[in-house]
């Protein structure tokens, strides 16, 4: 069993099987340290929202346990909810009321003074629209209001479920910057779930990558990327990638396991970019049908593709 200290978040062997037998979470464990921004990453349906549902006491776990600020989610749900602020995947606001009224309701429910409302609305750039109906807010403004609201009760943990979903790239980028700044200013621990892995790479201190209800990697983004290889060699291929894969199998050391997508073969490499360029030049790639060659830094997306393709390949091997 894992060591259970008074950490902001401890998830230990968590299992959730929904009625009907859908196994959404299959025994995941992780801990989040004070002041950390921890990312729960994975594709849609991986089990991220279910995990957050357990932590917010909206989903009853089938097994394992989860502690929030040292409180058990089943035995002490009120203490758990008092310790956290939550921003849901889709907007959860009183649309007929103003931003200010939404903040005030939160203050009353969490029994905290209303004197921080103005400062928080200012911090998220909504001071000038505080008295306007939320119905007139853009998607990004609604999300900023929800983040300000979640911080109003001075939570020890801020849970963000897909906070940038449905927002345009500029707003997404601004929102991540704001989350980082607020986290530092409010000294709050953040658990964020997202399927935008590359966005999380620049924000999260550590990440857990979830696939089909299980954690398949847990580390800092730089370690995960470093373990894969600092660079990716992307090869554009035609309908049949087999000749390219054959060339890569006979290649000199320095290339990792190739990953195939629809029209691309990507190869991780820990070689510096100039050496990788030379190596690529020595291979008979064009003769094998390669149409484009590019070298770029590896990302968490590549880590995820690498880990999931390896896991699926293992699952497909007959016993």
């Amino acid at each position, binding site marked *: 069993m894992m060591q259970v200290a008074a950490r902001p978040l401890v998830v230990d062997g968590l299992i959730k099987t929904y009625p009907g037998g859908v196994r959404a979470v299959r025994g995941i464990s992780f801990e989040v340290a004070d002041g950390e921004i921890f990312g729960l990453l994975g594709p849609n349906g991986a089990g991220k929202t279910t995990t957050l549902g357990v932590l917010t006491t*909206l989903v009853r776990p089938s097994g394992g346990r989860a502690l929030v600020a040292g409180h058990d989610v089943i035995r002490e749900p009120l203490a758990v909810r008092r310790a*956290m602020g939550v921003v849901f995947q889709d907007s959860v606001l009183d*649309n007929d009321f103003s931003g200010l009224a939404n903040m005030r309701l939160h203050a009353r429910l969490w029994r905290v003074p209303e004197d921080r409302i103005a400062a928080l609305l200012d911090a998220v750039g909504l001071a000038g629209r505080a008295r306007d109906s939320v119905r007139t807010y853009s998607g990004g403004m609604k999300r900023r209001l929800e983040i300000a609201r979640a911080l109003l009760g001075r939570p020890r943990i801020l849970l963000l479920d897909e906070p940038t979903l449905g927002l345009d790239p500029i707003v997404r980028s601004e929102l991540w910057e704001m989350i980082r700044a607020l986290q530092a200013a409010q000294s709050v621990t953040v658990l964020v779930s997202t399927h935008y892995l590359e966005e999380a790479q620049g924000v999260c201190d550590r990440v857990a990558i979830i696939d089909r209800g299980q954690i398949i990697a847990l580390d800092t983004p730089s370690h995960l990327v470093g373990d894969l290889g600092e660079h990716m060699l992307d090869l554009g291929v035609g309908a049949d990638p087999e000749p390219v894969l054959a060339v890569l199998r006979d290649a000199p050391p320095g290339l990792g396991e190739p990953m195939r997508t629809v029209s691309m073969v990507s190869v991780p490499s820990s070689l510096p970019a100039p050496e990788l360029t030379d190596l690529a030049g020595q291979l008979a790639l064009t003769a094998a049908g390669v149409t484009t060659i590019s070298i770029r830094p590896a990302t968490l997306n590549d880590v995820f593709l690498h880990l999931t393709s390896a896991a699926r390949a293992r699952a497909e091997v007959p016993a």
Partner: protein
Amino acid sequence: MTAGFTALYRRRLSVSLSQPAALAAQILTPVLWVLVVGPALSRAFGGFAHGVNYTSYVSLGQIVFVLPFSAMFAGLTTMFDRDWGIMRELLVAPIRRAVIPLASTAVVLTVAAGQFAIIVGLALARGEHFATTPGRLLTAVLAAALLSAGVYGLAEFLVFTITKPQAFGTLITALGATPYVLCGAIYPIAVLPAGIRWLTWVLPWTHTVSLLRYGLMGDTASGLHQIWPDDLPWTGAALLSLAVVAAFAALTQTAAHRAFTRSTLR
């Protein structure tokens, strides 16, 4: 507990009062009945029972139209909160979740009290006379409150059982209008065919309207002896009817609580 209840009550009351058009529309029908249709029918038929004023009779009948309809409509607010509104924010608040439907029921009762006062006030303003005592007035008010709470319990049970808003919209009309037509709100149930009369006896609406008339118009107008045996004393019949409405409220509120818990904790 109290802080959470107060915050939720204030918020839900604001939601209800922020739709003046809906409130006005719900009041318009009884206003028409109390001020126009009731008196017109009374003049046309010259009254229908010895010593019973039809305008007063039909005025109180409107209470079992307006209050249940309003309670059913309140279910729409709950459905909206659940599907597109603030319900999940409330569910992760550090309050006992049972307080959420409790505060909503309290707002339904507040609105019902206002509607009750408007209907009776309009009737009085038109010159009707109600004969009552504190005990009888309490019986009438309690009956109206229990019916409202019961119908809201039914609405909330349906909200957390039915997933489609369209289906719920259809049920508002069915559950709001049908019992009103059958329960003796505008005519005594004694004139109904015997095969249908037994159906009216099990409707909480029938018991409520009888209790309203028992409380505000007296024994004869109540119609309680059209429900219970003639040899039963009036007070006994009233208590039995009150028990029926209370049982209805308890049953639907319990069912609503269970459906709410099942729906909000997966």
